[in-house]
Structure formats: structure tokens, C-alpha cells
């Protein structure tokens, strides 16, 4: 009994364990450089777009393994529009709103064909991938447009000074960052305890006490450690705030709301969901329109990080997002997957990327390794499912 429990939890946390092993490997092979404060900081800032896009992609994948190939082009298109607006010295918040609205409109446009006209998502978004890449070139007229609006860069994490200012005025340590870390860990622990008490009093099944305690302690330690590290450097990168907002919002949407429930149900059995009185077309439309909105946000983060917009930006972003979801345990048939899983998947890809860069591995081989990691993750998934039968 104990043994089966352990193997079950091992299976549940396979990717977390894989992540720990990968970090350990790079810690060893880069002589600890991978965990330098600056590298952790870069890991977050560089991968902000992956987290945001993978969140949107997860919703599409949940509806039945459907993917959106156009996100890379949409990121570039939206970014281009924003850069041009700011280049004309208009208000940066206007640019932000325009970018989000354009992203949403693009998503609604594609979602309409997919949901209401039944164009297969692969084809509808492949068309989008070509079209919006072309339009990005048109918007930017083939040139690089630089972004220099300071407010914009600070808020969305570009340039050198894109950190949450230290209100508490620490000297060597960024006190705001440290305080934030402590606060987050405290809230996390409080919520876990409260949830457990609530479940107990209502007589629901709870996770084994030891397991949940180990998990809570580990997660809290990691949070504290991460913020301590960041405090040692320049504090909280502003990109982290955007990542956190998106992840928390969508973790909530997918697990607690009716729309979240419908996403899973449609992916699990579309016909049954339709006969249960759910407007399944609306569910598809929501997934793709939302993908557009998040592509808009990713576009903002991308041009802020690069402080410019170029017609080649965003290439391959869709693949990073898709890979993060699948590595994070989303099913290629839909109906299975979670935001937390996706976060682990995206982090795993990010760590591998960065580790290889620090090791000075050639870019071409880096791609080979990434491909193999994706393949191995899926093989693992398929094998573990087979065993169950």
C-alpha cells in the first residue's frame, strides 16, 4: 500500500523531479553559475513571453489538442504596431491598450473561423501565421523601430532599470523584494492550512498529512530562496509581476470557473458537453480569442525586453509555448492539463536553454537537445499511461 502510494506520487511529480535533476545537472556542469542571482533574474525576464503564451496555448490544447500556430506572428504584428505608435511620441498607455485590443481582435477573428465555421484550427492559424508575419513587415515597413518610452520599458521589463523600486530602502539587499517573498510564502502556507482545515471540517478526502507538509515546506523554501536571490541582485524584475498576474488569473479561471470547466469538458467529450446544454462553439471561440489577447501581452513584453520591434521577432514562439504545455503534462488529445504543470514545463525548457547557453553550447545543438527533451517527455507520458492499463 505504502509502495503504491509512493509510486503514484512519483508519477504525479515526474516533471518536477525531472526539473530538479536538470537543475542539479547544470549546477554541476556550470560550476554553480546557473543559480547566480543574475542568471535567475534573466531566466525570468527572458522567458516571460513563454509563460504568457503557454498559458493561452494551454486553453486551446485543453479544448481537444488544438494548437495556435499564429502566435509568433501575432506577437510580432502587435509589437510592431505598438512600437510605431510610441515612435510617433504618443502616450505609451494608449499604445498598450491598442496592442491588447488588436491582439484580442486577431484572436476573435481566428476564433470565429474555428468555432463558427469549423475551419480546422491547425489550418486557420497556419493561415494566420503567414498573414500576420506579412502584416508585421508592412507595419514596420521592413525596418527596426526602437522603443524608448521610459515608462513603458520600466513597467514591462525592458532595458536596464526594469525592477520594482525598493520602497523600503535596503542597502545591499533589496528589502521590498525580500518582504514580498516572505509575504508570498506566508500567504501560501496560510492558504494551504486553511484549505486543509476546511476540507477536514467538511469531511472531504485530504492528501496525506506528511506529503502535503513536505510539499508546503518545499514550495515555501523555494519561494523564499528565489526572492532572497533576486534581492541580492536588483530586486523583483517587472516581468515577474506580469507572469504572476497571468498565471494566477488563469489558474483560477481553469480550476474554479464554469468556463474553465467547459474547456476541459469539450476536450474530453465534445458531443456529451454539447448535449449537456453547453454552447461548445463559444468555448472554442473563448479559447482562441483569449489566445489573441495573451499574444498581445506577449508582444508588449517582447518589444519591451528588446527595446525595439523587428519584422523577425516572435519566430518559433508558438513552438516554445506548445512544447511547454506538452512537457507540462497536457494531453495531445485535449481535456487534460493544468497551469501548474505548464509552469513546470516552461521552466524546464527555460532552464535547459539557459544552462546550455552558459555552458557555451553551440546554438544548433541546443535545438537538438530541446527537441529530444520534448520527445522524451511525451514518450514518458505515453508509457506511464500504458502501464495503468
Amino acid at each position, binding site marked *: 500500500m505504502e509502495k503504491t502510494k509512493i509510486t503514484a506520487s512519483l508519477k504525479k511529480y515526474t516533471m518536477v523531479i525531472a526539473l530538479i535533476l536538470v537543475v542539479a545537472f547544470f549546477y554541476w556542469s556550470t560550476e554553480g553559475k546557473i543559480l547566480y542571482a543574475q542568471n535567475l533574474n534573466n531566466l525570468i525576464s527572458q522567458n516571460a513571453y513563454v509563460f504568457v503564451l503557454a498559458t493561452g496555448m494551454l486553453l486551446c490544447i485543453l479544448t481537444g489538442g488544438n494548437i495556435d500556430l499564429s502566435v509568433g506572428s501575432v506577437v510580432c504584428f502587435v509589437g510592431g504596431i505598438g512600437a510605431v505608435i510610441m515612435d510617433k511620441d504618443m502616450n505609451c498607455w494608449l499604445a498598450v491598450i491598442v496592442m491588447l485590443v488588436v491582439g484580442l481582435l486577431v484572436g476573435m477573428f481566428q476564433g470565429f473561423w474555428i468555432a463558427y465555421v469549423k475551419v480546422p484550427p491547425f489550418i486557420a492559424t497556419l493561415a494566420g501565421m503567414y498573414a500576420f508575419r506579412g502584416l508585421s513587415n508592412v507595419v514596420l515597413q521592413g525596418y527596426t523601430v526602437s522603443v524608448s518610452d521610459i515608462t513603458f520599458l520600466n513597467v514591462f521589463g525592458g532595458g536596464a532599470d526594469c525592477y520594482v523600486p525598493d520602497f523600503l530602502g535596503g542597502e545591499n539587499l533589496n528589502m521590498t523584494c525580500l518582504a514580498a517573498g516572505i509575504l508570498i510564502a506566508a500567504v501560501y502556507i496560510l492558504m494551504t492550512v486553511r484549505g486543509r482545515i476546511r476540507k477536514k471540517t467538511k469531511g472531504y478526502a485530504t492528501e496525506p498529512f506528511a506529503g502535503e507538509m513536505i510539499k508546503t515546506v518545499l514550495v515555501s523554501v523555494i519561494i523564499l530562496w528565489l526572492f532572497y536571490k533576486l534581492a541580492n541582485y536588483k530586486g523583483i524584475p517587472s516581468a515577474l509581476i506580469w507572469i504572476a498576474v497571468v498565471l494566477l488569473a488563469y489558474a483560477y479561471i481553469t480550476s474554479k470557473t*464554469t468556463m474553465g470547466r467547459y474547456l476541459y469538458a469539450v476536450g474530453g467529450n465534445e458531443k456529451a458537453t454539447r448535449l449537456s446544454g453547453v454552447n461548445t462553439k463559444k468555448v472554442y471561440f473563448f479559447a482562441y480569442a483569449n489566445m489573441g489577447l495573451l499574444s498581445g501581452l506577449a508582444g508588449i513584453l517582447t518589444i519591451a525586453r528588446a527595446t525595439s520591434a523587428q519584422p523577425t521577432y516572435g519566430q518559433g514562439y508558438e513552438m516554445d509555448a506548445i512544447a511547454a504545455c506538452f512537457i507540462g503534462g497536457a494531453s495531445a488529445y485535449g481535456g487534460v492539463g493544468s497551469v501548474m504543470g505548464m509552469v513546470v514545463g516552461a521552466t524546464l525548457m527555460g532552464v535547459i536553454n539557459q544552462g546550455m547557453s552558459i555552458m557555451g553550447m553551440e546554438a544548433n545543438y541546443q535545438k537538438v537537445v530541446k527537441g529530444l527533451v520534448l520527445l522524451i517527455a511525451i514518450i514518458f507520458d505515453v508509457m506511464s499511461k500504458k502501464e495503468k492499463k
Partner: protein
Amino acid sequence: MAKVLLEMKNITKTFPGVKALDNVNLKVEEGEIHALVGENGAGKSTLMNVLSGIYPYGTYEGDIVYNGEICKFNKIKDSEEKGIVIIHQELALVPYMSIGENMFLGNEQGKKNAIDWDKTYAEADKYLKMVGLSESSKVLVKEIGTGKQQLVEIAKALAKHAKLLILDEPTSSLNETDSKALLDLMLEFKKQGMTMIIITHKLNEVAYVADKITVVRDGSTIETMDKRTTEISEDRIIQGMVGRELTNRFPKRENVKIGDVNMEVKDWTVYHPLYPERKVVDHVSMNVRKGEVVGIYGLMGAGRTELAMSIFGQSYGTGITGTLKLNGKEVTLKNPKEAIRNKLAYVTEDRKGNGLVLTNPIKINTTLANLDSISKNKVIDKDKEYQVAEEYRQKLRTKCPSVEQNVGNLSGGNQQKVLLAKWMFTEPDVLILDEPTRGIDVGAKYEIYCIINDLVAAGKSVVMISSELPEVLGMSDRIYIMNAAKIVGELDAQDATQEIIMANILKSGKGE
């Protein structure tokens, strides 16, 4: 006594944690039709999988003696070489390939890397003739109906030089006419000396074709009866299958008051969604009262499911005309959501395909059709959800470790209960149950009948669609008979007998 062709001796097969077969013995004589009957999960299919080599030699205990020698099959090909061919329950044909291509798939004619198409089609035509199919072997499989597809499967088996043909529920997807034709074909083959094993749920088929009957229960062979020497009644077979005498297969309904008309359909006509010139429901009028169980009996393809689904928020068909009155008020239901809001529920016949999300737990399936009632501002109250699921689990006595269990892991009977729970939770006034006991065993059937009785006792109306005559007769207050898209008769349950119902269908003329 005829020669024994096949003998399976003391076969025991264990899966991790389950003993699927326990000392099974089966003896089949040359030239006989041997029926294998038993409840779902009794082990019939496992036994046949052992025989055909799907479970290779060494993974089971016991011996297979075929034609006097002990066989050690490692794969299906091995058993097929000996002439043992299984036709599985689900048709395994590729729709976009021709009949001929399908028949020789994996058994291609000609040289190693070059298929001889002339030979393929000539051979195929030869075997099609043997099964009495006039279709050319170049026709695509998707162009022919399921009845003919089943014949193609048999022709395919013959092309493998079958000596022992095993048919696993061969008529489960066929209508009455096609079933009869298939059974007659089996009798014809018997005359030519073929040996056959038929696995079936339908006892009338057993009575029609079988020479011997072996009953399997809980992984063991209970008994073998020889129909040629003794008279065997259906009740006798059922008794063997369930291990007890079912004196009453249908629970009694007492003191249920039948009230006003709850749902009324008038002149309901529906056309096929893909072939809009084809009428699938033709001017149907019917009603159901409060506290009443109305049975709709008809053969497959009579238009029963189409009628039900078109009523349930137009979820099937085009060009729907006619009026629908619920509780005396005329309503137009444009989609399932409106149907649910108007207290109508449709429990599908296809629980895996149209009913449940198998990858999700019981609690999520239970609440899916009425999520709004447990959520506030589109946010789900998970406590309430758990309570609701738990309540229905206890009420319907669903067997499961907890409501967090994925529905895909449950048995058919328990899945059906979850499906019922889901629709009961929408608090309907009228429930349309489409084949509510299909593919579940006798014990679970009884429990479903009890649930139906509870529903009408609470003043609901139940429309029960079924193609099992005893069930319709045993459960209904009133019976509509449907054939070829029309209602061809209406009977009070007290007056109805199997003969009268069948006569009604036959009188209405042979349906297309």
C-alpha cells in the same frame, strides 16, 4: 458422437489483481454451432482472446487442444493459420478502402511486394458470393450498410480458410432483418460442415441457431447444455447466467398516480441532417403523463433516437416541424440549454460517445449539465459540487471508491448511474431514457429499473426507448410502437404481448 474439434482444458488467466478466467473448460464438436452466453464481464471475450492468441501461450494456464494437438499460439496469425478466425464485435473495416482491399488487408494476394489486384478482386468476389452479397468487391466499405459490412467481415474470415469461426456479438449493430439473414447464413455454413462459436446476449438468437450452450459466469464455465437432446427455456439460461432464479426481473411499481399530460408532441417531422430529403421522423404524435412510464419500442433505425434528440433542443436533424407542449404550454426549444431550462432531459443511448466525459471524475460529470446551479457569477462552488455528487452516489448506489474517481474507470452499469445522476440533477419533469440498460448486466439493470420507479413515484414522466421487448413490456404503463419513422401503434401495457407488438410492426409493412 461427432469428433471434438476444439477442447479448452482448465484455462486460467489472471490479470494483475483479477482472476479473469478460473479453470474454464470448453468442448466444441466439429460441425456444431456452440453458443457462449454470460453476463458482461463474465469472461467470454477473454476466453476467446486466449483461444486466438491475443494473449500468447504462457500468459495463461491450461491447454488448448485443437484437432487433436496441443496449440501454443503466440499471435493471432498463428491461430488463423490453423483456421481459427474471430470476428470481433466492433467492425474492423477501413471505410475508405474497397471491400476487396479490406478483405485481404494483412493477407495481400500476389507476390511479396507487388499486390496482384486482379487476383484480389476475383478472390474477393468469390467469397462475397459465398456469403450471399451481390455487391462488387470494388465498392468502398463506407458505401454499404452495417448489415452488409458484417457480411464482408465474414467473407474476410472465409478468405482466411476458416474452419472454426468465432462470432463475438455479430448482431449487436444490426437490425432485425439483417440479424435474421446473418443467422440463416450461419445455419447454411453449418450444413457445409463449418464449426462456429457465437457469443451473444440475445437469447432468442441462441434458441434459433445454437446446438449447444455453454454458460460462463464470473470467469468459470457453469454448465453446458445440449439443445438437441433437451428442451431449454430462456429462463433456464438466465438462471445459469445470473446464478439465481430471477422470479421478477422488473420491480413492481405501486400506488403511482398517473396525472395530467406533461409532454405532448404533435405532427413531429424531422429530416436527416446530411440527406435533407430523407424523412427520419414522420408526423409523430405522442404524449406522456405525470407519473407515467411510456415505452417506445422499435427496431434499430426506426427513428426513435432521432425523435428523442430532435425533441431535446433540436440536437438532431433539420427541417423540424410540429408542436411540442410541456406542461400544457407550447414551447420552441432551439438548443439543449433551452430544453434543460424547460425541465426536459435526454439520457443518451451512447454513454461513452455522447454522455460522459470519461477523462473527468464522477463529480464533474454529475454537475456538467447544471453547473450554473452550483456556481455564483460563473465561479464554481466546489463544496456544493462535492456534496451534490456524493448525494447522488448514495442515492443511486453507484459503486466507486469516491466521487473523485474518473468515470472511464467505472463499469458500464456504474457509468450508466453517473449518467442518470447527471440528468436527475438538472431536476427535469420529463426524462427521455434512450436504451437505459444497454450493455449492462442483469443485476445493474434491476437497479436502473428501481431508479425509474422512484422517478415516476416522485411525479416525473419517463419516456423509455428500448429495443428489448421484455423490458418495454415489464416497465411501461403505455407503449408506442415505432417503425420506419412513424408511430404505428399505441398499446396499454396490460393488453400488450410480444406477439401483438411484433404483429403491429409487421402489419405496418416492411420498413426501409
